[in-house]
């Protein structure tokens, strides 16, 4: 159970940002490694055959979501930290998450 003191949008947004950043740190090397297989074009093409699997598609979508969530959340944070303060931080949290969902939806539409 999360402590009641943490149960508010600011904290959820932080968790999401941290978890997405962390996941990216672990995923990106894999992603880079796959791109590296382009040194051997057959392997690279072979990899793409594998991506047709629905589970893999789901995974791809999740990764795009991670990137989108971390991006919008990160930009929100940069604005919070470096531009003059404005009230309505909760609305911004919602907006940044909404934007990330839109990106995810756009990607998903292309995927199916």
């Amino acid at each position: 159970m999360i402590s009641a003191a943490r149960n508010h949008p600011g904290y959820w947004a932080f968790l999401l940002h941290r978890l997405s950043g962390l996941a990216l740190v672990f995923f990106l090397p894999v992603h880079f490694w796959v791109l590296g297989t382009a040194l051997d074009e057959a392997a690279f093409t072979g990899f793409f055959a594998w991506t047709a699997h629905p589970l893999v598609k789901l995974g791809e979508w999740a990764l795009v979501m991670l990137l989108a969530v971390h991006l919008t959340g990160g930009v929100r944070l940069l604005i919070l930290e470096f531009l003059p303060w404005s009230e309505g931080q909760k609305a911004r949290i919602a907006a940044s998450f909404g934007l990330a969902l839109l990106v995810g939806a756009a990607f998903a539409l292309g995927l199916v």
Partner: protein
Amino acid sequence: MSVRLFLAQRLTALILAPLVLVHLGVIIYAVRSGLSAEEILGRTRGSLGWALFYGGFAVAVAAHGAIGLRTVILEWGGLRPGLATAVAWAAALILLALGLRGVWAVTAGGGL
């Protein structure tokens, strides 16, 4: 966290933001016509622009992700600062090496 690390992470985030935005745009655009090796390589091969774009991404992400990882393991992992810094350096080097190798593969195809 020292001001310098803080600054470095925020600056790299600032660099990453437009890069990731463009990258996400490209992916969403690309998946609509179905992702394939030829399609990707067709876009990137021999392009100095994309090489700089993704190269910049790899460098920034190595710094940004490693600093972030260090923060997370310090706060959640309870590691000694020295050890956390070592882990972060390792992550940075892996990200940088695999990242640059990937960029090299998709843009130069292993040649120069």
